[in-house]
C-alpha cells in the first residue's frame, strides 16, 4: 500500500509543474494587467508598481523567481489586497471554505444516504418516486438559483435566518451549508439507491435473510457496506469539487472563503493570487483523489490485490 501511495505522489509532481507553468504564462498572456483601471495611472506610477511586484523583469526571470519563492513556500504578495500576502489569504480563506464544505458534506451524506436507502427498500413506491423526483430537481437546480430561493423563503419571508455573512450572526451558516449540500445530497441519494438495489439483489443478502438476520442488520451491516463503494468513489472528486467550487455559494452568501478569492482574482488579474489558488487547489484535488482511491483499495479486496501486484 505504501508503495502504491508513493508511486501516486511521484506521478503528481509533473502534473503540478505543468499546472504551474501553464497558469503562469496563461494569466500573463490574458489582455489587461493587474494595475489597469478605468482611471488610468500614469506611466511613472505604473513603473514603480511594476518594479515593486517584479513585473518589470523579463518573463523568464519572473518565472524562475516565482519558482524559487514557491520552493520556499512563498506565494508572493496579492496585487488586489495590497497589504496581504497570498499565503495569508489562503490561510484565512481556506478554513472557511473547508468548514462550509464539511457542513455541506454532512448534510449531503445524511440526507442523501437516508433518502437513497429508504427509496431502495421501497423501490417503485411513492417513497421512492417522491424523493427521487425531488433529488432530480436538486441536481438540476443550480446553487445560484437555489441559494436565493432559500434566502427569499427563510431569510426574507419567514425571517428565521440571516441571509449573508459567516459567523457574524447566529445561524448564518445554515443556509449556505444547506444550499451547497443539497445538490450533493441529491447525487448521493440517486447513487446510493442504485447501488443498494444492486446489492440487495445479491445472493449473500438472500443468504443473510435466510439465516434469519434482522432487516436492520442486513441493511446497515451487510448491504450498506457494499453499496457505499460507488458513493465513496463519488465523494473523492465531490469533496474536491466542493472545496474548489463553493464560489457561487460564497458569493451569494457573502462568505470570505477561498473560492470567492479565486474567481475574483481572475477578474482582477491578480497574478499571484490566481497562481497561488490554482496550485493550492491542484494539490488538494490530487490529494482528495488519492485518499478516495486509497480508501477504495482498502475497502475492496480485489483492488487491494491489484495494488499489491503493481508494487
Amino acid at each position, binding site marked *: 500500500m505504501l508503495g502504491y501511495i508513493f508511486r501516486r505522489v511521484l506521478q503528481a509532481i509533473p502534473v503540478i509543474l505543468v499546472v504551474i507553468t501553464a497558469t503562469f504564462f496563461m494569466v500573463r498572456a*490574458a*489582455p*489587461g*494587467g493587474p494595475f*489597469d*483601471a*478605468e*482611471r*488610468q*495611472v*500614469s506611466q*511613472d*506610477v505604473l513603473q*514603480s*508598481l511594476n518594479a*515593486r511586484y517584479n513585473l518589470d523583469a523579463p518573463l523568464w526571470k519572473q518565472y524562475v523567481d516565482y519558482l524559487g519563492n514557491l520552493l520556499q513556500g512563498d506565494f508572493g*504578495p496579492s496585487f*488586489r*489586497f*495590497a*497589504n*496581504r500576502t497570498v499565503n495569508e*489569504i489562503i490561510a*484565512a*480563506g481556506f478554513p472557511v471554505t473547508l468548514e462550509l464544505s464539511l457542513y455541506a458534506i454532512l448534510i449531503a451524506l445524511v440526507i442523501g444516504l*437516508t433518502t437513497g436507502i*429508504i427509496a431502495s*427498500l*421501497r423501490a417503485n413506491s411513492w*417513497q421512492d418516486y417522491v424523493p427521487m423526483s425531488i433529488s432530480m430537481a436538486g441536481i438540476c437546480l443550480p446553487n445560484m438559483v437555489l441559494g*436565493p430561493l432559500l*434566502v*427569499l423563503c427563510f*431569510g*426574507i419571508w*419567514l*425571517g*428565521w*435566518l*440571516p*441571509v*449573508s*455573512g*459567516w459567523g*457574524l*450572526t*447566529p*445561524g448564518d451558516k445554515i443556509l449556505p451549508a444547506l444550499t451547497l449540500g443539497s445538490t450533493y445530497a441529491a447525487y448521493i441519494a440517486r447513487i446510493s439507491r442504485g447501488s443498494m438495489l444492486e446489492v440487495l439483489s445479491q445472493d449473500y443478502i438472500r443468504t443473510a435473510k435466510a439465516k434469519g438476520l434482522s432487516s436492520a442488520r442486513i441493511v446497515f451491516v451487510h448491504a450498506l457496506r457494499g453499496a457505499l463503494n460507488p458513493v465513496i468513489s463519488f465523494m473523492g472528486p465531490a469533496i474536491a469539487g466542493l472545496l474548489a467550487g463553493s464560489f457561487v455559494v460564497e*458569493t*451569494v452568501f*457573502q*462568505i*470570505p472563503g477561498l473560492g*470567492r*478569492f479565486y474567481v*475574483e482574482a481572475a*477578474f*482582477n*488579474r491578480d497574478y499571484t493570487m490566481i497562481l497561488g489558488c490554482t496550485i493550492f487547489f491542484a494539490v488538494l484535488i490530487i490529494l482528495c483523489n488519492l485518499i478516495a482511491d486509497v480508501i477504495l483499495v482498502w475497502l475492496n479486496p480485489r483492488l487491494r490485490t491489484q495494488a499489491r501486484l503493481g508494487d
Partner: protein
Amino acid sequence: MMKISLRIVTVILAAIFMLQACSSDRKTPVELGIEQQILHIGNLGETSDIDPHGNTGQPESQIQRALFEGLVSRKADTLETIPGVAESWEISEDGLTYTFYLRKNARWSNGDPVTAHDFAWTWKRAITPKLGNHYGYTFYVFKNAEAYHKGELTDFDQVGIKALDDYTLQVELAGPVPYLLELLSFKTMYPVHPPTVQKFGGAEQLSTPWTRPGNFVGNGPFVLKDWVVNQALSVRKNDYYWAKDEIKLNEIHFYATSSETTEERMFRAGQLHITYEIPSEKKESYRKQNHPAFHSFPLYATYYYALNVKKPPLDDVRVRKALAYAIDRRLITDRVLKGGQIPAYAFTPPNKTGYVPEAKMPEDVALARQLLAEAGYPDGKGFPRVSILYNTLDQHKAIAEVIQQMWKQNLGIDVELRNEDWKVWLANIKIGNFEISRSGWGGDYVDPNTFLDVHVTDGGQNKSQWSNTRYDELIRLASQTGDQEQRYAFFQEAEAILVEEVPIIPLYTYSRSRLIHPSVKGWHNNILDDYFYRGVYLSADDEEQ
C-alpha cells in the same frame, strides 16, 4: 417502513419549529445596531487598502473618511468647507500662499498630537516617486511638487510645503487654485502617522501591515477595529478625536458586499441600515411604492460614449455630430434605466450652486441625417463597419442596444455591439483599439476642472485621443486665474468646443439609488456620494432630534 418515514417527517418538523422558536426572539443586526449605535453599511466591493496613498476607489474613500481627517472637512449636505484639523487659515493677497493653523487638541488615535510636521512628512511621502501614489498628480497644485514627483527635483525644501512650527503649516501654490480647500479635504491629502508608517516598512513603501487592525493609527473620528477580507471591516469610535462629542455612533461595520442584489437582500433581512446601491431592475418598483427607505439623487458623474477620433469614419466631425444628434437621451433615462438618471447634453454635470454648462448638444434627427449625407453616407449607405464597445454589464448592454436601434432607425447605419470582460476592455481602451466605447467619469471635487481637464491633449484619461489647441489653452488659462467668474468663462468656452467637436457623446448624469433604514438619523446624501459620519445616529423614534 412507513414508520421510518413518519419519524423522519416528525424530526424535520420539530427542527423547523425549533428554528422558528429561536428566531422569534432573535434580534436582527439592524435592531441590535439601534440599541448599541452600530451602523451597518453595504460598501459594495472589498477594500484594497486603507492607506490614503495607495488606492482610488469609492469603497476605500468611504472608510478612509471615517479613519482620517484632513486640514479641512466638508458639510455632509452642501459639501461646504468646514475646519478640520486646521481651525483657521489665511490666504495671501495673490492667492498663492495658504497658512493653516492647526488645532492643538487634534490627536492621533494613540494620543499623539497631530502636528504640521506630520502633514509635511505625509505629503512628502505622497509625492515620493518610488511610492507609486495613484493620486500623486493632485499635489501638482503645490509649487515644484510636480518636478519632485517626477524625479526632476530631489530637494524637498524647494517644494511649496512647509511646517513653520508644530501647529502652523504653510503651502505655496504653483498657480491660483480656487478649489484648493476642497482638494485638501480629499483623501489623498489626509495625514498618516509617521512613526507607525515607519515602524512597518518605511515611508517609501505602500501596502505594509501598518493598516492592519492593532497596528493602525489614524486621526479620524473612528479607528480601525477589525478587518476580515471579503466580509467586513469595522471601525469604532476614536476617543482621542477632537470633536468626539459630535460622534454619536459607537461603531460602523462596512460590508464587502459582492452585488447590489446581495445588499438588497441583506437590507430586507435586517442586516444593513444603508445599502450602497439598489439593483437597477428594482429601482422602479421601490420608487412606485414610495418606499420610506428609498432614496435617489443625482451624482457628479457623467455616462458618455467616447468616439475614437483617430479611426475613420469617426475622424470626420460631421459623422460624430450625426451620431450624437440622433440619440434620444430621454428615452434611455426614462424607459431603459428608470433609476432617476438625468439626460446629459454637455460633459460637466450641472451643479446648482456653481457652474452649469451653457453649451448643449442638440437632438435633431433631420440635421443628423443631413450631416451624415454631407460626410458621404446618404441614408447610411456605404457607412463602414463600426462597433460599440462595452464591458460586461447588463445596463451597458441595454443602453448599447437602444442606441444601436436609434442609429439604425434614424440614420440607416448598422453598428455592431462588442462586449468584453472588464480587464480586456481596459486594455483595449488603453491602446485605442475601439471605435465607440461606453465610458464614465466622476468628479473628485465639485469644480468643472475635474471634468474638463480629462480631454486635454494626451491626457491620461482622454480615451477619444482627441486634441484641440484652443481647448488645451483654455484649461491652462483657467488654472492660472483666481477669478472665479473668469475661470468659469474659460470653462464655458471649453465646454462649447467639446459640444461642437463631439469627441464624446454625453448621455446622462449618473444617479444613486439606495435604501436607508428609517432609524438612521442625521445622514445626508450629496452629489459626490461622500459619506460623513459626524452627527449621524440611530433611533427607532420617527422624529429626528
